[in-house]
């Protein structure tokens, strides 16, 4: 499907990964980890930055790569196939374009270079205990005190808050009128007095990824607001529309599937290779076919003419479903040793028994259930499509 001229680009990226991706980082990604320590992320970001690939989506004058859509597509695929971490998402992928679109010159000058250099890690303070799928119901309050906002309340499910230096968030500055009104987009220093981060452990037992963040009389300079007061909803919508395709997780799933097939070819069940066990084979093939259908659909929607209106929803729905099918298969392939609980991988010791996949298959299987819940649960995605596509 890829234009031949881009095959050279693919080779270039592939070669770069082979030569520059540190083994220890690769090994962590290969264990399906989403909880990479900050120092690993920073190290990889700076390796990419040297190559000019750390902030590829930015305008060229700010350090962007100027790639075509197809090149972005290839780059993302090759990252995954090499077990490389993705480019950091909150700073590079979300906040930066929002600042570029809505920020003041001062904000741009202050914020963007520190993202590009991995000096600041950002987290996204959108969801709240009572406002997940129904984001506009958020309540965390920022009172305008003239030269500063006074923030009280809490944010929930905040990915990477425990390693973030700063947060961009949505705060309630007015509670009259429509609930989408009165929301303001504000940048908060995570080290400010009154900010407290409380990690939320997930039942898979792995490392920390998400947190609840509590704000008690946190003072934020008024110039940390992005865009107009009360008008943050528009910025949020812009920001959330940036990731139209990544949530399909196709590239990551392709890599997981490769791992699964390699593993299943080397295992035996009864007197068959696991990959030839009829039951396993059928499940594997079905998952592979579905992933192929999602891959082809992603490509078609990306490059094939008019937008369908809810590409992201469609791809997120089916992509995360098949991703979970593949990870469930990996868990099942490991057999009884899948039951070994290794706990937080950063603190885990040696695997006591079983194949190396036993060290992460179950964690990944359980942990990735979240992909069907976060960023708008798959039920919400269907409701979005019913409205946006079917007009219901």
């Amino acid at each position, binding site marked *: 499907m890829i234009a031949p001229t881009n095959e050279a680009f693919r080779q270039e990226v592939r070669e770069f990964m082979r030569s520059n991706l540190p083994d220890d980082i690769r090994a962590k990604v290969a264990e399906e980890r989403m909880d990479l320590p900050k120092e690993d992320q920073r190290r990889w970001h700076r390796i990419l930055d040297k190559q000019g690939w750390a902030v590829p989506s930015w305008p060229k004058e700010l350090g962007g790569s100027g790639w075509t859509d197809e090149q972005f597509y290839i780059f993302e695929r090759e990252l995954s196939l090499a077990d490389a971490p993705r480019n950091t998402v909150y700073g590079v992928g979300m906040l930066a374009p929002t600042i570029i679109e809505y920020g003041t010159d001062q904000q741009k000058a202050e914020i963007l270079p520190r993202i590009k250099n991995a000096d600041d890690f950002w987290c996204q303070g959108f969801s709240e205990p009572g406002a997940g799928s129904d984001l506009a119901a958020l309540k965390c309050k920022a009172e305008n005190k003239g030269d500063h906002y006074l923030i009280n309340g809490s944010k929930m499910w905040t990915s990477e808050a425990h390693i973030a230096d700063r947060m961009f968030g949505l705060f309630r500055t007015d509670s009259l009128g429509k609930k989408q009104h009165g929301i303001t987009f504000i940048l908060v220093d995570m080290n400010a007095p009154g900010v407290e981060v409380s990690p939320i452990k997930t039942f898979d037992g792995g490392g920390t990824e998400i947190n609840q963040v509590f704000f008690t009389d946190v003072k934020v300079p008024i110039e940390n607001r992005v865009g107009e007061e009360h008008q943050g909803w528009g910025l949020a919508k812009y920001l959330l529309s940036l990731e139209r395709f990544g949530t399909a997780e196709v590239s990551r799933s392709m890599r997981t599937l490769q791992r699964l097939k390699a593993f299943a070819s080397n295992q035996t069940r009864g007197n068959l290779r696991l990959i030839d066990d009829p039951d396993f084979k059928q499940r594997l093939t079905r998952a592979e076919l*579905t992933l192929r*259908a999602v891959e082809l659909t992603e490509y078609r929607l990306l490059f*094939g003419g008019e937008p369908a209106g809810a590409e992201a929803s469609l791809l997120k729905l*089916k992509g995360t479903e098949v991703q979970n099918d593949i990870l469930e298969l990996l868990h099942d392939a490991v057999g009884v040793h899948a039951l070994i609980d290794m706990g937080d991988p950063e603190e885990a010791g040696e695997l006591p028994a079983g194949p190396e996949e036993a060290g992460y298959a179950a964690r990944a299987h359980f942990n990735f259930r979240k992909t069907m819940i976060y960023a708008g649960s798959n039920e919400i995605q269907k409701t979005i499509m*019913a409205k946006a596509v079917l007009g*219901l």
Partner: protein
Amino acid sequence: MTRPAPLYTEEQQIIADSVQRFLQENYSFDQRQKAITSERGFSQEHWQNFAELGWLGLPFSEEQGGFGGSLKDAAIITGLLGEYLAMTPYLTAVISAGQVLANFAPGNVCELVEGSKIVSCPHFDFENSELTVSKQGGAFTLSGDIPFLPYAESASSLVLHAEMDGDWATFLIPTDSSGLNLKSYKTYDGGRASDAELQSVPAQLLSAHAKPALEASNLATMALLCAEASSILWALEEQTLAYLQTREQFGQKLSSFQVLQHRLVDVYVNCQLAQSMADDAVEAVSNWASDAPQRVSAAKAYIGDLGRKIGQDCVQLHGGIGMTNDLPIGHYLKRLTAIDRLYGDAAWHRNQFAMFAETK
């Protein structure tokens, strides 16, 4: 319109418009229902129209009397025929038999393109050869049983294959040959087919080394069946959506029930996925890509399962009215079910795909 606009070239748009126009006029559902109960199960007059409109010649080269179109162009036709549930020998004659004749008997293509003769051709099943060849001097005779020759009753000749000298050979036999007995029947999708018994039927050898061509013909037919199924799925999606928006129950439009909305979304999403697979299969056979067998099996397996499931869901979403003979819905389900039966079902193609995927 929830269906994505097809990415047609200008020429393809002209073909699509012309086919659409013809079918709108001549294949309303009532007209279709009449056509399938006619003596031969389709209208000879329409077949002549197909010839005049250039449909029959589309995928043949100009030297052969065709119009030099591609299988992609032909997929536009089979897709629309599917949407209108127009049952004809198009696929068996123009694609299955036609692609073989184009290779080995280009002189016979002309009659096909003109619509004066119809040729029927079975699914080439390389694992189960049903025919044996006898050679006497330079003359060949075929014996054995072949099931499911589409529209053989209407055909003037059959393209058949058999193992010979450790290779695969393909033959042409006239349907009025002595020793050939056809048991003909209607099929539930509104088509016709025959089982053939051959007892020493004289046969014209087209090629003694036909395997690649037979495989190509097989793959082309499978890919076009996928394209047909994909079009049918979109038609089902549109008609089911429209029905739920009209029909009321408990004082509300059916389309206002969240459960039904989400089920319709499932149908829509699956239509998108099925289309991607079908498009890819047609693309693969149009360019004779080296991985065409895998890509076609992927599509046929995926659409075989999914097509039936969507068809069943759309009957269910219609409720009682979906069970009636006077609505196309059930007929779409029957055609989708037939498509899965033909040329290897989902389970068979899944195994093929797995085989290719592993050796890759």
